[in-house]
């Protein structure tokens, strides 16, 4: 796609999210719908607009619960938006929320809306587990089944192993490789060491812990009271600020036990959470006397080869989006890049500096160059805070805006990779 943002100027006014929790912990009893409505209700509570002013809701999600197919609609109805607000769900793996935000932004840019909410929600605690294809076929047939004989006949041809449930794999359909296996391939191809990966992951945790300690997340996390205990959850619970390099190094590789370097500790973990961002046309924000956090300056959405470039989305999307915004990498004060794996981050950083990559894959003379590590994911990232697939984009955009505000940066870049080798990058500018 072309890296352009035409039409009316779109601004980010506010962003909120639930705390992110390791799957199977605090939010075990919640669905993606529950998490989503808490994020949106929390945003509406803080937002300087009344629910009736919102004209569109777009939510990203990855693991779809068949009970709430268009989860955005259920979220909208249950979170206090009037029933008259259309809502749709987008699913683009780990950039679902990013593209939900872009969808809403496009609607505003085109004049179809002035106020929209976009974000995402996912729970990995309750992945839709299915029975095997063989059993499903029979169950479907059984709905028209005739009598006991018919039912018995259906057992014919059913193998014992068909009775095992199918858990959705976090794998690419086209390559059959799981994310972790692909990360492992990447590590070997680019020669990224275990030591570098562990060091990067450790720093991510330390930064997230530090930011939380300083209260930087207070204006983006909506405390959540989850049944059945209703003990408030106010903070992300997967951050290991007290971890050590030694502890990290002691872990066995998760995807290639013998030769591998990718471990549970230097990969993002399964997470439950939701995020929501309030977008407005700049005109409307100004008319209401609202001071926006930032405007959307440029966007880029890319897609590459899912086998060898699966996790490299930012390396492809960032050069384009910077060019489109007409700014140099040095002008960017805040970088928020999704950390699927430490190795993926290191690979992206490496390729952004790589002349051959720039020449051969991007067709440009000069690579983007080195990204100042102090400006990159300074409040932690998906490795430490967690990664509810469909929700991470909302967290990235909100954190980017809040960091720009706190650090006095003019430009910020949000970028992420996704299954299917889709990449996305957004340039935000303070207004």
């Amino acid at each position, binding site marked *: 796609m072309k890296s352009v943002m035409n039409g009316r100027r779109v601004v980010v006014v506010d962003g909120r999210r639930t705390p992110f929790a390791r799957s199977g912990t605090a939010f075990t009893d919640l669905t993606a719908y529950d998490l989503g409505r*808490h994020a949106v209700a929390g945003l509406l*509570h803080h937002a300087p607009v009344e629910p009736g002013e919102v004209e569109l809701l777009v939510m990203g999600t990855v693991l779809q619960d068949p009970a709430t197919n268009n989860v955005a609609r259920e979220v909208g*109805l*249950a*979170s206090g938006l009037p029933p008259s607000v259309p809502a749709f769900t987008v699913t683009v793996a780990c950039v679902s929320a990013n593209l939900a935000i872009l969808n809403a932004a496009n609607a505003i840019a085109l004049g179809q809306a002035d106020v929209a909410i976009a974000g995402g929600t996912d729970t990995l605690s309750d992945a839709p587990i299915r029975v095997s294809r063989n059993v499903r076929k029979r169950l479907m047939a059984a709905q028209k089944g005739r009598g006991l004989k018919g039912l018995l006949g259906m057992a014919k041809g059913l193998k014992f192993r068909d009775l095992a449930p199918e858990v959705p794999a976090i794998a690419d359909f086209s390559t059959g490789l799981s994310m972790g296996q692909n990360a492992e391939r990447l590590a070997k191809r680019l020669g990224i060491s275990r030591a570098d990966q562990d060091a990067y992951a450790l720093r991510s945790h330390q930064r997230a812990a530090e930011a939380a300690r300083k209260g930087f997340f207070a204006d983006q996390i909506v405390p959540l*009271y989850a*049944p059945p*205990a209703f*003990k408030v959850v106010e903070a992300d619970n997967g951050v290991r600020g007290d971890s050590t390099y030694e502890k990290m190094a002691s872990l066995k590789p998760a995807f290639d036990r013998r030769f591998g370097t990718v471990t549970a500790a230097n990969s993002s973990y399964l997470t439950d959470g939701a995020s929501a961002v309030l977008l407005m046309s700049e005109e409307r924000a100004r008319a209401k006397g609202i001071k926006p956090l930032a405007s959307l300056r440029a966007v880029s959405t890319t897609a590459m080869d899912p086998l060898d470039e699966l996790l490299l989305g930012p390396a492809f999307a960032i050069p384009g989006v910077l060019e489109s915004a007409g700014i140099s990498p040095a002008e960017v004060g805040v970088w928020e890049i999704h950390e699927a794996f430490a190795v993926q981050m290191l690979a992206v950083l490496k390729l952004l500096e790589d002349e051959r990559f720039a020449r051969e894959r991007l067709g440009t003379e000069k690579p983007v160059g080195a990204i100042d590590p102090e400006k990159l994911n300074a409040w932690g990232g998906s490795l430490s805070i967690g990664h509810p697939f469909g929700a991470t984009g909302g967290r990235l955009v909100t954190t980017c805006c809040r960091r720009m505000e706190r650090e006095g940066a003019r430009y910020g870049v949000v970028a992420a990779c996704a299954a299917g080798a889709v990449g996305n990058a957004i340039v935000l500018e303070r207004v």
Partner: protein
Amino acid sequence: MGAIRVTKRPDGVAVLTFDNPKGKVNILSPEVVEEFRGVIDDIERDPGVKACVLVSAKADNFIAGADLKFFLSIRDPMVGERFSRDGHALLDRVADSSKPTVAAIAGLALGGGLEVALACHYRLAADDPKVVLGLPEVQLGLLPAGGGTVRLPRLVGLPAALPMMLTGQRVRARKALKMGLVDALTSPGGIEETAIRTALGLLDGSIQRCGRKRPWMERLLESPPGRVLLFRQAHRSVIAKTRGLYPSPLSILDCVRTGYAKGPAAGYDRESVLFGQLVAGPECKALIGLFEATTELKKPLDATPPRPVDRLAVLGAGFMGSGIAAVSLELAPVVVRDLSQKALDGCARGVYSGLSKRVKSGAISRFERDRLFARLHLTQQAEALRRAELVIEAVFEDLELKRKVLAEVEALVPAECVFASNTSALPIASIAEKALHPERVLGMHYFSPVPKMPLLELVVAEKTAPWAVATARAFAVKQGKTAIVVEDGPGFYTTRILSPFLNEAVLLLEEGARMEALDGALKDFGYPVGPVTLLDEVGIDVGAHVARELGPVYAHRGLGASDALPRLFEAGYQGRKNGRGFYVYPPRGKKGKKRPNAEVYGLLGGAPRRPMDRKAMAERLALLMANEALHCLQEGVLSCPRDGDVGAVFGLGFPPFRGGPFRYLDALGARQAVDQYEALAKLHGQRFTPAPLLVEMAKSGKKFYEA
């Protein structure tokens, strides 16, 4: 203009549409019954009419019940009896007609309304939460006098019918289908069409009532020996609940029993006779009076328009604050602020479990629960109050704290935000003493537990603006509360009349009364709990606090507080909450009975225990309460006796069948009451000196309520 429209269709179905031209609900007045009779005459005669459908043109009710104004006017039992007999004759004709009649119920069908439906051949209800069926006559001191005591048990079984009639328990559509009260459910829109098709189906036999299968347990209980057991059990539980003070549930049991023992005709006859007695009796008059009063109090006052409240803030997430939040979620998003995270957690849990109970009862859907719960925003930050349009504080009962909270709120909220204090005794004027905008400060005194207690005492201080009162009142009415408006002053109305009542109980204990005897005496008088138990429930610390606040104010009338409560509190007695009160309680979570704490007698000092006349004890307390209510009326704290009666009954448990302190005095007669007061004053002191207002009334022979 009539209340029933008849449309005769070419297919032979006559549609009878109930549409009361004089109000939003259909009611059965003598005129409507007369009109109904005419319609039935015509339908029976008309050979073109083969079947009948009964439907309502009102949005949310089928027939809401009988005409209470008519009931209130009945003095002669024969009038009531005749009304009932006329109803029986009419409904019997419907039930016995060869032309099938279908009742199409898309809203409330209560009392006589349900009895009309019961006489039909088929009941079709809308699958809608608006559909509520019940026989609530007992709550008005009456009985179902349109054949309900005979037809209901035969339709749904005795075990299900008894609680409906004896407690007024209501059922919603799905439950009604399950128990056989209705025959089928349909979607609310087009219920008339479906009812017409059903009537035609009943006519040609393509639709039959699918009778309910009676479980064997029910058959067993309905066998003659089972019935004996069931009736005995029901009788026992009625006596336990009402102490025999309410004639209506016992009359209902009598009717049901007669109907089973001697057949339906005898049951109907019994209904009519007993109904006549009940409707002319004082209990029914008092209960209907209260019902009418609460209905009036819920009507909007158009003097000053209320301002909209699109965001409510509650300060304090304790039991009170949580309750206030819970009853407000349907009206507006609610911010609850508390500095204690534990209290906020508890608030979330409490509100959610309350919503879940409503899901279980079918009042709301699970999705609706989610939607409502999402409107609750719990926070420790004061900042969150910024956009509130009504703030209700339910923080600890401490003047300085309340002033501080008010100042904090005023610094944040817009000028048109109303600030209400949920104080039970602190004068609003002193809370608002340093307020920037005292005109928007008032009292909203809720009663605990908020979701259950229907009363709200709205306290208006001298500087409170009418718009603020109107806004708070409109909000309270939407919360489902009955709001009485009272003037500011120490203890307002309810706390002010409760305080001497409780103090008198303590004095009686000091004189040598036994606590269980005293509690029993007041329960026999009709209070739901005795004063000693009440002190334990409220908390001895709270009682001591109120006594300290109010005692000195009214000391000149001899109402100085006993120092027993502060003494008990200092000795570590707090009441129920710490397990140490007048009674000793079993440890939390454990079962067991409370028993009198003999140590308390020692601490109270005074006379040794001795038997005392129970009736005298009860009257002494009730009269003291009533006297204080008289003073409130005389001083203008109350604007009318009606508000005083509603407040005392719904806030303090004054025996409902007595109708409240003013109706109680009316029943005694002012002359007689003055004599009683003077006798008590001679014995116990000037606190019993009757209020001048009563003395005047004794002279003029006036009553608080028109006879």
